[in-house]
């Protein structure tokens, strides 16, 4: 019996090691960009410093009137108008979207934010912003969705396997709960890996499992196909039936003036009281069959679903009412998605989300380092030459763990340094990220791994620590000005960058001190290495 248990633990250890390693770098990318995603609109703001401070206290009547004026002028005869109201940090500015517009010099579809003061489109530099950085978390940016969705899905499944097998092979979860013994090589890395995983285990399980739920219709396509038939068209029928609000109809072709939004808002207040209105979704504006769909707050709590009211766009009659809470199993899904995205989170919970994400990234990073440290120590004991796999992992570790943050900083640098009128400016911000990352992979491949850690560490310290300086040199929204005007989104960004700079400097300094010591010892019995270190 005991032997069987031990055998089980050993096979779980094998599983943990290899599921963790194989897609570990991809998971690290997903964790880092996902963590950044908890601060997406704050990053948007920093990357478009021309934009005014958000105003979340604007009355729905004036916002919708401004938005309607814009849509009537620039999106006539549209099939659909969508007006997002600025009610929290998730939607800092009024937003208008439209599709199916027709007319001379009219864009068929559009999506833009409005200046809350003037009602004119928000002007600012062309930027990919925090949104693109956040979306990379699952789109992986350059890959077609058909590939990235499945790659992300397999990685997430691996993550879940690694989490569960990790719990099984950890012999002393409770006894080692607070145990971190620094300065002891492999032991310290294992402690760090254990502490970061165990103290955030509920978050890691939630985020991984809910990540799979997010894409359930993609990972289990045959469930839909079984009842709706195969193919994209049948799939769309399913999505329309499940996710579209009720009481929608085709356009009649007979024009009829769209009701004033004020009346719809007043009627909504009679039903919802003071609960905020997050969006007006108008189907067939100006048609006799117009519908105005009023959507409630998606971020009211962890249940990521909204109350919906559907009004006749001409008579103002309330046609249908749909509650956010419709069934237990749907609520389970909605809570999972809500917990994953954390849209409801205020400043404190948002900070804790970011911390948990960082610790998750650290969990993956320490696991990857542990794999390499373990094998490096074994090799040094036997004085064997490091095999190709170990050298590869060591280099991939440096270029991912430190290289990715540097590349993200490069994204911010590109935002400030690329010419304002450059063609495809937003795309080049993203290209900068990946080009810099590629360069760091090359650097890690060419330098001895121990040196690469230190060098990329100092580089990270410099690019993060100097970002506030760059910001001060290239805009008038420097840290002092932001603090003076109480603009805590911009000030917070600068302060976090400074803190990251200090953290990377401390890391580089510590690793440098350590490799300096062991590097000299190593030089005694390894020819070639000292010459490269001296470069």
């Amino acid at each position, binding site marked *: 019996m005991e032997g069987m248990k031990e055998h089980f633990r050993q096979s779980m250890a094998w599983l943990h090691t290899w599921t963790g390693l194989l897609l570990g770098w991809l998971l690290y990318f997903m964790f880092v960009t996902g963590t950044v995603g908890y601060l997406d609109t704050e990053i948007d703001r920093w990357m478009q410093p021309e934009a005014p401070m958000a105003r979340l206290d604007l009355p729905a009547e004036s916002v919708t009137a401004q938005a309607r004026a814009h849509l009537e002028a620039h999106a006539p005869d549209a099939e659909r108008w969508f007006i997002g109201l600025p009610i929290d940090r998730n939607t800092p500015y009024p937003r208008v979207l439209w599709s199916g517009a027709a007319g001379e010099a009219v864009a068929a579809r559009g999506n833009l934010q409005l200046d809350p003061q003037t009602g004119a489109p928000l002007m600012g530099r062309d930027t990919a912003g925090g949104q693109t950085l956040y979306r990379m978390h699952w789109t992986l940016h350059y890959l077609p969705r058909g590939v990235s969705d499945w790659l992300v899905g397999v990685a997430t499944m691996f993550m879940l396997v690694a989490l569960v097998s990790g719990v099984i092979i950890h012999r002393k979860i409770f006894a080692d709960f*607070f145990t*971190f013994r620094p300065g002891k090589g492999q032991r310290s890395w294992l402690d760090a890996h254990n*502490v970061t995983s165990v103290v*955030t285990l509920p978050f890691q399980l939630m985020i991984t499992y809910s990540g799979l739920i997010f894409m359930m219709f993609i990972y289990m396509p045959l469930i839909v196909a079984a009842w709706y038939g195969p193919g994209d068209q049948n799939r769309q029928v399913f999505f329309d039936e499940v996710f579209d609000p009720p009481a929608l109809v085709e356009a009649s072709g007979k024009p009829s003036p769209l009701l004033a939004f004020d009346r719809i808002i007043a009627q909504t207040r009679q039903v919802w009281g003071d609960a905020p209105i997050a969006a007006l979704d108008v189907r067939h504006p100006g048609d006799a069959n117009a519908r105005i769909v009023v959507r409630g707050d998606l971020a009211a709590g962890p*249940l990521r679903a909204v109350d919906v009211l559907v009004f006749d766009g001409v008579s103002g009659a309330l046609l249908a009412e749909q509650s956010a809470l419709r069934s237990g199993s749907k609520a389970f899904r909605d809570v999972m998605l809500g917990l994953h995205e954390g849209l409801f989170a205020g400043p404190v*919970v948002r900070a*804790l*989300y970011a*911390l*948990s994400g960082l610790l998750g990234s650290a969990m993956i990073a320490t696991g990857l380092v542990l794999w390499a440290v373990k094998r490096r120590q074994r090799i040094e004991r036997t004085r064997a030459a490091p095999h190709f796999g170990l050298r590869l992992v060591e280099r991939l570790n440096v270029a991912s763990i430190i290289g990715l943050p540097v590349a993200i900083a490069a994204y911010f640098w590109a935002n400030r340094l690329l010419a304002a009128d450059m063609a495809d400016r937003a795309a080049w911000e993203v290209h900068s990220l990946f080009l810099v990352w590629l360069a760091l992979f090359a650097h890690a491949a060419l330098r001895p791994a121990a040196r690469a850690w230190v060098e990329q560490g100092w580089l990270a310290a410099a690019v993060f620590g100097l970002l506030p300086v760059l910001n001060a040199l290239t805009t008038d929204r420097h840290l002092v000005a932001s603090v003076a005007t109480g603009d805590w989104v911009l000030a917070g960004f600068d302060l976090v960058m400074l803190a990251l700079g200090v953290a990377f400097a401390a890391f580089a300094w510590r690793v440098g001190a350590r490799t300096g010591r062991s590097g000299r010892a190593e030089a005694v019995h390894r020819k070639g290495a000292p010459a490269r270190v001296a470069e």
Partner: protein
Amino acid sequence: VIAALAFVIACAGFTALALAMDRHHRVLYRRSPSPFARWALRALGCAGLAAALAVCVADAGWSEGSILWFGLLSAVALCIALVFAYAMPRSEGSAAAQHRSGAVDPPWMQGD
């Protein structure tokens, strides 16, 4: 402010739970806890965590309060682990070490 209160209570709770363990108890007192002390510290620790949950739930309701609580526990446990790792040299006497353990609390909570 409520979150800070819950943070401090959770700190106290996790500190008590840590001190119920041999390894961490020895750091402060150079001996294993007596069976009674171990039991009392565990009870105190659990009570602290429960009190922190109560504060979170009273402030933000069950759904968001419990999420806040989980997040706080992660942060607090990490802090305690770091404090035990870096801020408590083994050689110090219990009085000095106990004084140092005050570093767990944020500065504004000290000296009442």
